[in-house]
């Protein structure tokens, strides 16, 4: 609440200076873009550190300890190192494709946050097609991975790129169907409407028996595949394809892929928290704290997945998606629609 107050105050000050409304809007847009970029860059750096620390805890190690308190600024040091590194482009690479791939990946990762509500009123723009926009933008990642795989002119990279295309396309479908079952209940694509429809804890979609939990599980599984994390990290399967699509990337370009991956993980967690866990809703604490708590809780689950399970094989991955997840998601959607129509559990 305080945060939104500050923003409101600044906006009013800007209006009071008497400059034309177009400029006010432009300035506030740029300012919010910068704020979002800064916050997300911080979150990405924090997530990299957290993942390393958490993996260390799972494995009874210590993880980074030397740079800062418990290695807190280790990621910053790593980022500086990566910026300093030579940016190598292979001679036989398809240069424009190779160059643009990480940039598309990076930009797409950030562009999603236009419609993610960080708190009550803390949203850049409440589009009425919010969730559709998010789903559309996250799909851009696969194009960039495919470009990276093709542009590198490396067989491992190509295999990784192809795997990623196949994987993301097949997991996109059950994920959207799972999201759709929530949308059927809300009756709106706007993120704010979705959050506002689950004001009380029993109204959270994860607790709407019986379709909610199923949709949530489908969403989590598909989201893990979407963000290329273990057990679905086939595009960069280190033990098979060495590093998959980013095998030829170094320096800042690699860092862009790397950060985008972590931001994507945060994105899907934020969507999951918004759709199923009530977004910013919660008592006592400010709304944005609730949002962050829920999102980081989901991020923890993703990391827990990664440090526990082995990886699937590519054909098993496809089979799982098309033969199990997709029928289940459709059945669930029909169930949700019927529940909505008949008014059961429609509290």
């Amino acid at each position, binding site marked *: 609440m305080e945060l939104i107050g500050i923003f409101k105050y600044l906006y009013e000050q800007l209006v009071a200076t008497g400059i034309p409304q177009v400029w006010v809007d432009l300035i506030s847009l740029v300012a919010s873009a910068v704020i979002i970029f800064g916050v997300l860059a911080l979150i990405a750096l924090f997530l990299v550190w957290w993942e390393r620390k958490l993996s260390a805890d799972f494995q009874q190690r210590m993880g980074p300890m030397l740079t800062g308190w418990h290695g807190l600024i280790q990621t910053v040091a790593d980022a500086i190192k990566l910026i300093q590194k030579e940016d190598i482009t292979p001679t036989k690479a398809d240069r424009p494709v190779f160059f643009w791939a990480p940039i598309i990946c990076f930009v797409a990762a950030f562009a999603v946050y236009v419609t993610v509500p960080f708190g009550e009123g803390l949203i850049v723009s409440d589009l009425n097609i919010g969730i559709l926009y998010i789903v559309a933008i996250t799909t851009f990642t696969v194009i960039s991975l495919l470009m990276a795989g093709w542009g590198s002119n490396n*067989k491992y990279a190509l295999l990784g790129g192809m795997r990623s295309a196949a994987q993301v396309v097949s997991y996109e479908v059950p994920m959207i169907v799972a999201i759709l079952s929530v949308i059927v209940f809300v009756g709106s694509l706007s993120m704010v409407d979705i959050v506002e429809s689950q004001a009380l804890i029993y109204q959270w979609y994860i607790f709407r028996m019986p379709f909610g939990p199923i949709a949530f599980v489908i969403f989590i599984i598909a989201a893990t595949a979407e963000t290329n994390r273990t057990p679905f990290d086939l595009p960069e399967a280190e033990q098979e394809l060495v590093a998959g699509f980013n095998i030829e990337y170094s320096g800042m370009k690699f860092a862009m892929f790397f950060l985008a991956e972590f931001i994507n993980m945060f994105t899907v967690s934020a969507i999951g928290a918004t759709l199923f866990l009530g977004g910013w809703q919660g008592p006592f604490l400010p709304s944005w704290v609730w949002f962050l708590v829920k999102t980081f809780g989901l991020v923890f689950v993703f990391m827990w997945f990664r440090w526990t399970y082995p990886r699937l094989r590519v054909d*098993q991955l496809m089979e799982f998606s098309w033969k199990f997840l997709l029928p289940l998601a459709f059945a669930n959607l029909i169930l949700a629609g019927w529940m909505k129509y008949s008014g059961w559990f429609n509290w």
Partner: protein
Amino acid sequence: MTEGLRTEEFQVNMGPHHPSTHGVCRFILTMDGEVIVRAEPVIGYLHRSLEKICENRTYAQCIPVMDRFEYCTSMCCNEVFALAVEKLAGIEVPEYAEYLRVIMMELNRIASHMIWYGTTALDLGAITPFLYSFREREDILDMFEMTCGQRLTYNYIRIGGVSKDIPPEFIPKCKEFLATIDHKIDDYERMLTENPIFMVRNKGVGTLSPEMAIAYGVSGPSLRASGIKYDLRRDDPYSIYNRFKFDIPVCHNGDCYDRYIIRIKEMRESAKIVRQALEQLPNAEVNTGKMVKANFKPAKGEVYSRIENSRGEMGVYIQSTGDTKKPLRVKMRGGSYNQLQVMPELVKGVKIADVVAIMASLDIIMPEVDR
């Protein structure tokens, strides 16, 4: 539709700098998309000419060279060479030293299987089991370090006995280790054994039929996974293995999953053997054996000794002329070589991810192949 599309096979060079080829093995994979059409192993990147080195060393000096033969189970390498020379020269090893040898070899087998467990999980994408198994392996290496002074190349089992008696703190530490090892292996199993992802990755993958296994000379756990109950500790007992009660686990499908189960069970069996050996260890007479001198010359003749290593039958053939201090010919046999030769048959038609899984389950280690 298909007429317009042109597909072609392509070659991928897997190794020698590949993260999951366990050292420096190189495969030339001919692939059709993700499917392997042909695989050709290229060996020799870790060749150190150990056989020739041994032929230019005295018998006693060969033992530290043997340490490098298969560095995951150096104790067994020491033992196989010592056994060969003892057979050749008719040297008796005191009972106490035999017990120490068995304890060390079985601990080393557990350590070696722990490496295998960790790297198998790692090759399938699970990173955490690797660190759990290496945590326990560290305890074993600590025990070796306090006994012989090294953690990897022990130079402990010598011709005629063992080099040093165990330190007094060894037995309590070993007992403590044995008390917890079963729980730790339970932990390992909880991570993988019934995990559905692990099962679909391993069941029915890389099936090695018993006929093919025998034809290629596959031995050790990989052979027992194919349903053949053949273990040199029972079938050709060396040292004092006939004094211990232990099971030889056998599975029948011969796929990667069975090879996993066999090795997990073997860890428990080895722990059993060490427990019995510690109980039976004769306290009355501490005799670590009389080791042969540097100018030791065995009689003219030839000998082949073999033991059950964690990767199959490990053997050494020695030919002695009888008038020099050095062996005329030394030939080493490692289980990994045969298991690598069967790889091209097993990987035909599987996905590239399975190549990694099969290689991990066969537990190939390159120093043993290249020598």
